[in-house]
C-alpha cells in the first residue's frame, strides 16, 4: 500500500542544539506505526512538525504527496504529550467544541461525541467538568478529543502513559478499529513491549536521527542474529562441541547458541536427531528491546 504521510529530510535546531538531523520516514494508512526513542531523541519535535505546531528548518512533510495545508490538518487528530483540556468545561462540551474546530457541524459533533464517549466508557461522565474526573478518565477524554472527527491521520504522543491496564486495552482496541477503518496511526511510546505487541510498522529514533524504520517483521528479520534455540530429551550439553557453535545458554535439555558465519545450523539439527528426539528447534528472533539497543548504539 502507498504511504500517505512522508517526512523527508527534516532538520530542526533550537538555538545551537540540533534536535532533528535529516529525519525521514513514512506512514501507511490502515497500519499502526510505533515511534520509538529515548527521552529527548526528537519524537515530540517530529510530531509537532507534522502537526504544524513547529516549523522545520529544512525538509518537508507531505500528506498524500503534497505539502500539508491547513485543510489537511483539519483531518488529523493529535494527542500531545502534555495533556490538556479546559478544566472547567464539561467533557461533552469539550469534545464537541474540538470536533467543531475540526470542521464538524454542530449536529455531527454532538452525535459523534455521544458515540465516542460511549465507546470509551465515559458516557456517564459527559456532563462533568474535566477537573472532576480521575486522571485515567481525563486521559480517556483526551483520546476522545483526538478522535471525535474521525481523523485520517492520528498522531499520539505517548498515548499509554498514565493509563491503567484496563484503559490501555480500551484505547488499544479503539486505535486498532481506527486503523482497520483505514486511518494512519503514528504513536510514540517508550513502553517497548507494548509497541512490539501493537505495531505494524516501526520508526526508531536516537539523537535526532532515524536509526531504523520499516515493518516490524522485516526489522526483526534484518536484525536477526544467526541464533538458535534447541530442546531435546536428555542433556543438551554436547552441543558446545559441535562445529561453528558458540553456546550462550544451557539449561538441561534446552540450549541457545550462535552459529559462526557460514556454519550450517542444519548440521547441528541432524546431529541432535542422531542422538535422540528433538522437541524444538528454530531461530531466536530478537525482541524490539534488543533491536532498539542495537540500533541506538
Amino acid at each position, binding site marked *: 500500500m502507498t504511504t500517505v504521510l512522508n517526512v523527508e529530510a527534516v532538520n530542526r535546531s533550537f538555538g545551537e542544539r540540533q534536535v532533528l538531523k535529516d529525519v525521514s520516514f513514512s506512514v501507511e494508512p490502515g497500519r499502526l506505526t510505533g515511534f520509538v526513542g529515548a527521552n529527548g531523541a526528537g519524537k515530540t519535535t517530529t510530531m509537532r512538525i507534522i502537526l*504544524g505546531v513547529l*516549523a522545520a528548518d529544512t525538509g518537508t512533510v507531505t500528506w498524500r504527496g503534497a505539502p500539508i495545508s*491547513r*485543510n489537511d490538518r483539519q483531518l488529523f487528530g493529535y494527542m500531545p504529550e502534555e495533556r*490538556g*483540556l479546559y478544566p472547567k*468545561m464539561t467533557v461533552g462540551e469539550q469534545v464537541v467544541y474540538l470536533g467543531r474546530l475540526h470542521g464538524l457541524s454542530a449536529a455531527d459533533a454532538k452525535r459523534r461525541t455521544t458515540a465516542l464517549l460511549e465507546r470509551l466508557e465515559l458516557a456517564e461522565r459527559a456532563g462533568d467538568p474535566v477537573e472532576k474526573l480521575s486522571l485515567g478518565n481525563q486521559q480517556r477524554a483526551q483520546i476522545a478529543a483526538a478522535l471525535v472527527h474521525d481523523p485520517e491521520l492520528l498522531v499520539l504522543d505517548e498515548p499509554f502513559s498514565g493509563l491503567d491496564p484496563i484503559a490501555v486495552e480500551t484505547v488499544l482496541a479503539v486505535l486498532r478499529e481506527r486503523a482497520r477503518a483505514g486511518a494512519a496511526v503514528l504513536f510514540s511510546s517508550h513502553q517497548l513491549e507494548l509497541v512490539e505487541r501493537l505495531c505494524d510498522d516501526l520508526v526508531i529514533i536516537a539523537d535526532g536521527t532515524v536509526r531504523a524504520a520499516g515493518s516490524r517483521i522485516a526489522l526483526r528479520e534484518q536484525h536477526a542474529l544467526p541464533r538458535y534455540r534447541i530442546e531435546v530429551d536428555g542433556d543438551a550439553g554436547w552441543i558446545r562441541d559441535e562445529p561453528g557453535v558458540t553456546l550462550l545458554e544451557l539449561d538441561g535439555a534446552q540450549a541457545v547458541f550462535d552459529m559462526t558465519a557460514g556454519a550450517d545450523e542444519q548440521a547441528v539439527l541432524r546431529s541432535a536427531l542422531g542422538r535422540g528426539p528433538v522437541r524444538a528447534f528454530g531461530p531466536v528472533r530478537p525482541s524490539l528491546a534488543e533491536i532498539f539497543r542495537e540500533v541506538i548504539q
Partner: protein
Amino acid sequence: MTTFQAARLVFGREIRAKLRDKAFIFSTVSFLVVLIGSIAIPAMLSSGPTKVAVVDAALAPTLRAAALDVREVTDPAAAEQLLRDGEVEAVVLPGPKVVAMEDAPSELLDILSTVPPVELLDPPAFDEAIAIFVPLALAMLCYITSLLFGLQIAQSVVEEKQTRIVEILVATIPAKALLAGKIAAMTALAFAQIALLSVIALIGTTVADLDSGVISALRPALGWFLPFFILGFVMLATLWAAVGALAARQEDLGSTSGTVQMAVLIPFFAVIFLRDNAAALTALSYFPLSSPMAMPIRIFENGAAAWEPFVALGVLAASAAGMLVIGARIYHGSLLRTNGKTSFATAWRTRTTAAG
C-alpha cells in the same frame, strides 16, 4: 474551515465560559453597583430646592419663579415654628425680612437683593463639581474596564498554556484565529459593560435631574468615548494576550504584564493630573494610549474642534493595527513555550508554525 469560522467558534466558547464564570459576574455586578452609587450619592447629598415659608403673599410668585419650594403662611409665629421644626430653611416676613436658623440663606438673599448686572466672558457650562466629576468618572471607567478585561484576556491565555490545551488548539486552527476569537470575545464583553454603564450613567444623570447643559455635553462625549474605547481596548488586547502567552503559569502574570499595566496606568494618571493644562490635555487626546480618556474629556468640556476626534481616532486605529502585529507575533512566539517565563526577545525571534 476558514480562519474566520474558527475565530467565531473560539469567540462563542470564550463568551460562554465568561458568562458562567462566577468571579466575572461578581466583578461586573459590583462595578455596576459602584457606578449607580456614584451617581445616586451626589444627587442625594444635594438636598433639592431650598424650602422657605413666606408670610408676605406678594413675594411668593417671585420666589416660585426662582425655583424655590415655597409655603405660604399667614401667621409669622407659625412660620417661625416651621423654621424651628426644620420644615423650612428660611422664613420671609413682610418688609422683606429674612429669618433663618444659623446661616444666612445666600440663595434666597440673592433673589431678594438687587445685584448689579454681571457679564461673564467665559461662563462655565455647568457646575464646577460636575465639571470635575464627569471627566474623572470617564477616565476611571476607561481605566478600570481596560485593566479588568485586559487581565481577563491574559488569564485566559495563560489558562490555555498552563492546561496545555493550547497545543491541540494550534494544531487544529491557526493561532491567529485563536487570538482573534479571544480578543473579539473580550472586547465584546468589555464593550457591553461600558455601554451598559454609559446607558445607566445617562439615565442616572437624567433621573438625578442634573441641569440639561451637563446632559447635552455628556451625550457627544459618551458617543465618542465608545469608539475610542473599543479601539483603545483592541490595541492593548493583543498586548495583554502577548503577556499572557509569555507567562507559563498564572503566578508569572504579575511580572510579565507589568509593562502593559503601566501602559494603562500612566496615561490614566497623566490625564487626571494634567486635566487643567489645555496644551497637555490636547497632546494626550492624540496620544493613542491616552486618547480614549482625554479626547472625550475635551469634547465634554467643549474644547475640541469637530474634526479633532476623527484625527485622534485615526491615529488610534493606526497604532492599534501596529500593536496587533507586534502582539500577535509575541503571542505566537511564546504560546508553546511552557517551561517557565519566556522573554520578549525570545518570543519575538521564535519561528513557529509552517503553514499559517
